[in-house]
């Protein structure tokens, strides 16, 4: 089974998952206890106005037609109008998407840098403080509730020593000049992204350390050592090189979890992003908005899963064969 058919299979599978999620999304928002009509349509409206609103939101069509309409419009990123603001959901999401991506990228770069370098360092210095620290931080990452750490940091640096901004993506009003604006953005990014790094680096460090140790125990490393190659040379040229592929895969595999975490981070730091939009819309029963945000998040997760699969297939040929053999 070649890589191309593996890829095709993965893509088809991703489309299937997307379809399932979309259907689930549709059914869910139609099954809900609150009638969507009651959310927007005032009982004092005239009959014509009610009909007009129903038509506007497509609620007068038969259910199957609504479903088809829903699918085709979502593929065109037409997510309807928000019940709350009466603005197109997609244009509201478009405003927030860059913020979410920026936060995500900053978190990601920070976590990967700190985690991987710590993991490599711990593997290189076995049975020392560094190693204990890495194992401990991995445990910490798993057991300590992330939002608690974020709340603590917020209390500490936002209120107790008010040195960092506590909410939003930028100052209001924004400062003059491009450089000042950039600096202001980074200033606002420190607390959300920094707390995410603090929460997340442990599992990366632990994973890197474990794969490094596995690589260091391989025969070719022993051979290299026997040849008298410098310890550092072995570490960076032999071990690290073999460890990179699984780490790259981990990068993609960590994306879905990061998307989930974004909802909490964004709501704690009042970050003007997609995750907080989803939460607010859900709590306000603003169905089109919640649906649109969920669709966007699900799409991101599916794409990152697909990328992880592809990366994994490229890195490890056994997976392709295994996947081929299984079905």
């Amino acid at each position, binding site marked *: 089974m070649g890589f191309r058919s593996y890829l095709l299979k993965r893509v088809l*599978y991703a489309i*299937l*998952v997307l379809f*399932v*999620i979309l259907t*689930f999304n549709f059914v*869910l928002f139609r*099954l*809900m*206890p609150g009638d969507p009509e009651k959310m927007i349509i005032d009982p004092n409206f005239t009959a014509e106005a009610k009909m007009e609103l129903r038509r506007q939101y497509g609620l007068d069509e038969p259910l199957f037609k609504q479903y088809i309409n829903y699918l085709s419009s979502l593929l065109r990123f037409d997510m309807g109008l928000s019940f709350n603001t009466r603005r197109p959901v997609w244009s509201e999401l478009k405003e927030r998407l860059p913020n979410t991506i920026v936060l995500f990228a900053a978190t990601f770069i920070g976590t990967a840098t700190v985690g991987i370098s710590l993991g490599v360092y711990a593997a290189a210095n076995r049975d020392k403080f560094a190693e204990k620290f890495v*194992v401990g931080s991995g*445990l910490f990452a*798993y*057991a*300590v*509730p*992330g*939002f*608690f750490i974020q*709340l*603590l940091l*917020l*209390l500490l640096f*936002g*209120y*107790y020593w008010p040195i960092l901004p506590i909410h939003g993506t930028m100052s209001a009003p924004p400062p003059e000049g491009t450089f000042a604006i950039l600096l202001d953005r980074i200033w606002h990014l420190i607390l959300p992204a920094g707390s995410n790094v603090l929460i997340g680096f442990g599992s990366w460090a*632990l994973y890197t350390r*474990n794969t490094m140790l596995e690589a260091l125990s391989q025969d070719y490393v022993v051979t290299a050592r026997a040849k008298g190659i410098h310890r550092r040379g072995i570490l960076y040229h032999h071990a690290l090189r073999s460890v990179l592929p699984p780490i790259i895969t981990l990068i993609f595999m960590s994306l*879905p979890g990061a*998307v*989930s*975490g974004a*909802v*909490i981070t964004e*709501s*704690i730091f009042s970050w003007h992003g997609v*995750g907080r939009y*989803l*939460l607010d819309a*859900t*709590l306000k*029963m603003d169905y089109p908005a*919640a649906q649109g*945000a*969920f669709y966007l*998040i*699900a799409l991101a*997760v*599916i794409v990152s*899963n697909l990328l992880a699969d592809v990366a994994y297939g490229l890195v490890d040929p056994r997976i392709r064969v295994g996947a081929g053999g299984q*079905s």
Partner: protein
Amino acid sequence: MSINRKRKENQETARTSVTAAPRPLTFWEQYRRKPQGMLGLAIVLVYVLVAIFAPLIAPYDPLSDLYLADSVAAPAWLGKVSSKYRDLPPTMRLDIGYGEWEIDQAEETVVSAWPQAANEGVEIVIPAKETAAKEEQTTQSSTTAWTSSFQWDPFGLSSGAKKADEKTAPAADSQKDAEASAVLQHAFEYNYKTPQTFSSSFEYSIDAPGDATTALSLDMVTPSGDVYHLWEDKVRGSVNLKRALVDTRDFDLKQRLGISFFDDPTALVFAERGDYTLRLTADAESASGPVTIRMRPVKFGILGKVHGLLGTDHLGSDIWSQLVYGTRIALAIGLSAAFIAVVIGTTVGLIAGYFGGIVDEVLMRIVDIMLAIPSMPVLIILGALFGKSIVNVVALLALFSWMGIARIVRAQTLSLKERTFVEAAKASGAASGYIILSHILPNTVPLIFANLVLRIPSAILTEASLSFLGLGDPRVPTWGKILQNARQFGGFTKLAWWWLIPPGLALTFLSLAFVFIGNAVNEILNPRYRERS
């Protein structure tokens, strides 16, 4: 020869030692040697004990006992540690009945306990007065007073005059005492900083002829002798039942004290430390018959700014009690969600692994799709849609966390299926259900157990995040909800770390304990795991 024999003997001893020693260690014997595992178990045990004995440990009900102190009161012990919290008032509640009053009455007036018992209310009987002229005059003045006291005067036009009145009040004190039919006084000590609020209330009824006028008033005498007029009422004739209410947040009181809407009455009244006196004055003018005033004990309360072990939340509810009861909820949610997830996952895994083929394919595709769905957003949406009840939350948590277990159990089942004892059972005609339940399931139990333990903390943490995001059951005091309240209702601006840190630490230690246990169990059951970490 002798060497040979010796070797033989050695072999003998070796064999006996081999046969004698390795009775395989039971699970518990292995577990006992793992300090991490034992530590985890000890921590969980503490939590379980707290959960069981919650009613004994928590002094208050976490939901219904409100306004035990002012909103966001600090822990009481902080006053001993930090100067910032020194001398803050604790909650003070006076319930002043007949026995607690110091009674000063005019000659003809009879003041007695009503009904009978000393800790109950007071009955004041004021006989009719004969001077008709005076009566007329007072009636007139009292009528105007009556109207003015009930007039809604939002701009405080009359407050200036009243303030002037009060300024002269201390001077006229003794004279007023002499005139009044009955003066009830209760002295109490107040040695703290100014409180946030105080309030007073009592119920009373007046039984009097139609032409009688009764005046009641409530004053506070400060240590330096200033008199603040808190409440007054003038009534013509009888009153069935009325409730006097003094609250520092009411505009009525601010108006009466002559301060603006934004000023705080407590800053005026409780500015000093020392002996305060609450004074109730009753007076009546009646021509035709006696006036009887009956009143319940007067309640006077100051909501404290310090309270208990961990202070109070925004509704004046005891945080320590919420924390203790939260243990029950956390354990219940963690255990039940993990248990349901393990049951679903094991069933799916066993069926998929044993039957294989199309069943396996379909089930595993479902697992893959479920794994691809971002769980947190889905939980948020489902949690909001299906109603914020604890049962829904547990069901949803279980529904989105069984997939990992299904995969593991399926893999185990696949390998067990090929073993000879399963083959033998099949050959002897055992039914599939029987083989699964009595041959395969028992062999997956250790695996399932390790997974169950590791599922618990993640269920607890996920529930806490949901509660924290405002999707928890509003009637259930979970740790996540305490954190949410702290964030939403001023825990940060007031730097109330005692509101924020305890529930977070409780969550952290509980999930750490389960991770410790899970790791220890895994190390025993899966030797491969030991090599990896």
